[in-house]
Structures are given as C-alpha cells and as structure tokens.
C-alpha cells in the first residue's frame, strides 16, 4: 500500500522558530504546515497520511497540556512533540504521562527534533494501521448474522460446542456449522486468531 506523504504540523507563535522547524522538516523530504496559534490549527483540515504535531508548550493564552487534553476530547489522536523555551521540568513529566512523544528544550539540535518527529510519525502509522485493521474486522463482523455473533462470543469465551448448543437451544451440529461460518467470514485461521480479533473489536468500539 503506497503511503501517503507524512505531514508535520507546527504550532509556535515565534516566526524564527516556525521557519526553522519548517526548514528542518522539509530538508528530509517531509511536508510541513505551520500555524501561529492553536485556533488556526483547529480550523484547518489535516490531510490524510501519517501526521504528527510539533507544539510549543506555552502559546499565548494557551497551556500546551490543556491543548493536549482538548485534542483528546475532540478525538484528534495526533502524536505530539512538545518544545519549550523555558525549563519546564514539572510540565515535562506531565506531558509525557499524558502521552506526548517527546519534550525538547530550545534550542534543540535539529537531529533531536528529527528523531522525535520520526518517532511520532511511526506512532501515527501504527495507530492508523491498527485503526484500519479494526475497521476491516468490524466490516467482517457486520457480515455475521445475529446467531453467528452469539456463537462467536461463546467460542472466544472458551465454551465447548455442546455447551453452546445447550445455551442457545440448538443442536451441536448447528453450532458446528455456525462456528465454521464464523471462522470463514472473519477469516480467522484458528481460535486463537478469533480471540485476538474479538479483543480488538471489543476494545475498539466503532471507529
């Protein structure tokens, strides 16, 4: 699958910093989009493809951590690399705990920034991969009949065909047939496979 071009979003109110980061990003062939404020960023529509965000932790009037929470609330799951012009140690810890990829202090080495960006993009790729997998599984799950879903639920719970048949009030043979259909439709190669798929579906409600 051809990858869409990754984009690095940059939010910093200082022009020197914005221009410099844009330069660093472009010099390794990535696309950069810069913004002066969080509002500007939220008003834009991010292109598809692995993305990440380089964010100054102290923008005028906005606390970077609050923005991190805001993004989570808006369900915008973009990996964040924080940068700061102050020695914000307590903020560093908080930010990392809240899931930031990295926290760099200005002036940072361009290589350090690139490493962090690569890490963030990787994380975004993994998330997108995960998401698309779940979408596929959900698609398959949708194809199951109600009865088949009931069977699947009990199979992954470790119940024997006999038990399932008893619970659902059908014959063991019917259960076997339905089970086979489930495996086929879900494209699971083994019960373990099916269990994993079920976990993914359970922990990822409709994406």
């Amino acid at each position, binding site marked *: 699958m051809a990858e869409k071009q990754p984009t690095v979003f940059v939010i910093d109110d*200082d022009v*020197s*910093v914005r*221009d*410099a*980061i844009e*330069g*660093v990003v472009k*010099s*390794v062939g990535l696309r950069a989009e810069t913004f002066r404020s969080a509002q500007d960023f939220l008003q834009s529509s991010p292109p598809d493809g692995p993305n990440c965000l380089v964010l100054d932790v*102290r923008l005028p*009037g906005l606390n970077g951590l609050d923005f991190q929470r805001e993004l989570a609330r808006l369900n915008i799951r973009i990996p964040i690399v924080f940068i700061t*012009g*102050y020695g914000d140690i307590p903020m560093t810890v908080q930010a990392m705990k809240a899931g930031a990829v990295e926290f760099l202090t*200005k*002036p*940072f*080495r*361009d*290589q350090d*920034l690139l490493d962090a960006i690569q890490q963030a993009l990787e994380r975004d790729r993994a998330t997108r991969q995960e998401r698309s997998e779940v979408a596929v599984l959900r698609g398959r799950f949708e194809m199951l009949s109600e009865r088949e879903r009931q069977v699947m639920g009990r199979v992954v719970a470790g119940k024997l065909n006999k038990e399932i048949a008893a619970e659902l009030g059908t014959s063991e043979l019917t259960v076997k047939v339905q089970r086979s259909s489930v495996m086929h439709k879900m494209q699971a190669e083994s019960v373990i496979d099916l269990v994993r798929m079920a976990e993914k579906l359970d922990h990822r409600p409709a994406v």
Partner: protein
Amino acid sequence: MRSLEYVTLPLEGLNGRFGGYWFALVRILFGGAALALLTFVCVRLSLNLATALCLYLTIIILLSLWGSFAASTVVSLLAVASLDYYFSPPIFSFEVNNPFDGIALVLFLTTSTVITVLVSRARSRTDQLVLEANLRAEEALRQAQAELAHANRVMLVGEMTASIAHEINQPLTGVVANAGTALRYLAAQTPNLEEARAYLGLIARDGKRAAEVIGRIRALVKKTPPRRDLLDANEAIREVIALTQNELQKSSVKLQTRLSGGLPLVPADRIQLQQVVLNLMVNAIEAMHEVRDGARELTVSSGSASHDVFVEVRDSGPGVAPANLDRLFDSFFTTKREGTGMGLSISRSIIEAHGGRLWAMPNEPHGVVFRFTLPTGADEGTDDGADHAG
C-alpha cells in the same frame, strides 16, 4: 523627590535692580536717622570729639553689617561732616582750628572706609560660599537621582531575566536549527547551494534579532544621561511588553493592549519611559498574585488628549483604598516582602521631569489604574517637576 531647600541668606527677598536701589535707600535713610539722633544726643551731652568719633564709628560698623556698602559710605561722609561741624572747635562751623583734630577727622574717614570695605568683602565672600554650596548640593541630588533610577533599571532587568533569556532563545533556536538544515543540504549527494544559502540568510536574520534584544537590555542598564528624542510611545511600550511575557505567563496574567493608533510623537527619553512602564507592569503583576478566583487581567492602553499623550496600566488585583492611593508613590512605601518601595516614586520623578503627571485611580470592579501623561512637543514641559493640569 524635591529640590533641596536653599540655604537662605538674610536678604529681604527683593530681586532685581530696582530692589537693589530700594535696599540701599532704606539703609541710607535709617543710617542718616540714626546719625542725626546720635548727633543730637552727643551735642546735648556736650561730648568731645574723641567720644563722638567712637560712637559714630559704631554706627558705621553696624550699618556695614546690615549690608549696604553705599549706605555706609554715604553715612561715613555725613558723619565726618557732622563731627567737623558739631564737635571740632570751632563748633557750628566747618573750620578746624586744631590740626590734630583735622588728623583725627581724616583718620576717622579712613577707618570707616576700611571697615566698610572689609565687611563688604566678607559679606560677598560668604554669599559666594553659600551659592557654591547650593550648587554642589543640587548637583549631588541630581547624581543621586540618576543613580537611583539606574539602580531601579538594573533591578527591573534582573526581574526580567527569564523573559530576556526567552527572547534571545527564540532566535537562537532558529539559528541552531537552520545551521543544521543548511549543513544537511550541503552534505547531500549533490550539495544544494540554493537551499543552503536561503537558510544562511535566515540565520543572519535571527542573529540580528537576538542582537537587537541584547542592545535593548544594554540600553536599559547603561548609565546614560537622559535624552530627549521625539518618540512613538506605542513602539516603546511594545518593546517593553515583549520583555514581560515570561512574568505574565508564570503568573497566569492575561494581557490586553489597547494602544491607539496615530499617537503624536512625544519628546521623551525612551529608556526612562520604558522603565516607567516596566515598573507599572511589574507592580500590577505582583498585585494580582493575591487574586485566586477571578481573572488576572492587565490592560495597557494609550491615547492622546488635549496636548498630552497618556498611558494607562490597569490591573484587576485587590486594589487600594482611595485614601492610600497617593501614598503608593512615597519613597520606601511597599507592601512587598522584598520590595524596595522605590519603583513608583522613581517613576513619578521621571514623568514629572518630562513635564507630565503620574497618578493612581481605583479600577472597576476592583484593582488600580495607573495613568501618566506626557506633554507633546506643542506644549514645552519644564525639566524639574512643574505640574501640568490633567
């Protein structure tokens, strides 16, 4: 801070040439009257020449001390004439029979002249010393004020350190990152000179920006004598606001600026003006440390009214009782644990030296508004504390 009280001489406070004539005339009249009275008394008592002479000399001395060279001279001459007429035989005549009497009269005149001259010299010498002492005191005061203002600026810069570091750090970040980028382009399979050049250009731009910040800080801590340039108050204010970003962030203070466009230029010293604004802003931020619930808002506004340009710094802190608003400007008045209490007092001196006024008013619903005015060139301000209306 006001000028020293001059050491005042026992003068009648009359100035000018007309005053001088009046001064001498009064003394001549007095001296003449005293002389006439003394003459009458001596004649009645039938005193001889020697006694009369001594008494007259006393009058001359007193008159000299009272401060008029002219009066002493005139009265001396009158005294000699009087001595000759009334006391040297033949009396009631200007003739002199005894040559020793004649000598006595001449000596009298000489003595009184010498005394008059000596006393006069002593007086002018004293006058001069007092004047010099006053000038030295004024100079010392000016020096002290300048030192204090400088100390205040240095203290302000100290408080701004984190902000200053941040202001320099931004362009520095650009420089470091851009250098890496340029190097990367040059290290490519085929070095990309165009891109490298572009990023070197950015490095130059950022370096210049950092240098400007340094320059501004240096200007603040330099001990320069005040200048009078025509400046745009808004520009000066904006530069200073940049330096307070860190303090504002740290204290979670929201800054609003309402700087009117098209302000007339004012003759002012840029550094001192910035010093005043910095003092007011730092004060406001600290005042709002107490505010727990509710917004911490700092508003800086500017505008023009009649012949002045005004600047206001408004905070939403706990405020100050109206009775105490003017006390804020007293030297050494501070509620801060480590405050020097000098910031507002120095600020007021600076504004008044520019011919303006600085005062405080309550802010609604709470807090304080500090407002100062600066006269524009149209209305020449004086240099030492003259108050302007409004």
